């Protein structure tokens, strides 16, 4: 697969994940603003989230979309602002994707299981 093809796909993945994220962020912002009223407590949060499959499903999708979307932007910034070479920037992108995926899914599991 040529560079142009993989880069075009990378762009597409970034934009499709952005469409998913736009919806997720609106829901997330509403949730934050609702939940933060009267202060946050662990009991309150976990009471709402534990065993809640809709919650687990929604936030798993959110994490997956982040894991696709964030590395693309980070790679661009690394190359354009921090003078990374193409290979180093791509390696950084994979590292970022792995961190977000593992830590994100771990967090979703932590608050819903």
């Amino acid at each position, binding site marked *: 697969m040529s560079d142009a093809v993989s880069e075009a796909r990378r762009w597409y993945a970034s934009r499709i994940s952005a*469409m998913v994220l736009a919806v997720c962020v609106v829901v997330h912002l509403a949730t934050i*603003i609702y939940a933060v009223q009267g202060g946050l407590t662990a009991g309150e949060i976990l009471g709402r989230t534990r065993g809640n499959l809709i919650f687990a499903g929604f936030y798993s999708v959110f994490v997956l979309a982040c894991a696709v979307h*964030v590395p693309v932007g980070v790679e661009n910034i690394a190359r354009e602002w921090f003078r990374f070479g193409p290979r180093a920037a791509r390696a950084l992108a994979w590292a970022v994707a792995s*961190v977000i995926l593992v830590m994100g899914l771990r967090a979703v599991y932590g608050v819903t299981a």
Partner: protein
Amino acid sequence: MRRPGDFRARQHPAYWAFLAHRLSGLGLALFLPVHFWALGQALTGADALEDFLRATDQPLFKFAEWGLVVLLGLHMMGGVRLLLIEFGSGTGLRKNWIAGTAGVGVVAGLAFALALAR
């Protein structure tokens, strides 16, 4: 020819929108692992999460959280503008959506601040 630090050619709304989008994205990317780590505390029990929430229950952290909510609003709406330019019909740099992006940032910030105060 452009000398370093000469931003005279870049003073227009679409460029500010680009900068806001990139910087908010970078800020959110740096925050995400911290956010996930904090929520992951729940794995070791509700008490661990509660300890974290109490430790961060002070003005500096609240201000940072407020900033992140604003960044999220800005990045989301700025992203919708980019999607419209790239996938929508019609032309132009959609400067009305730049104003809309700033508006959503303000609204998200105010709503979060009000919710905090309740």
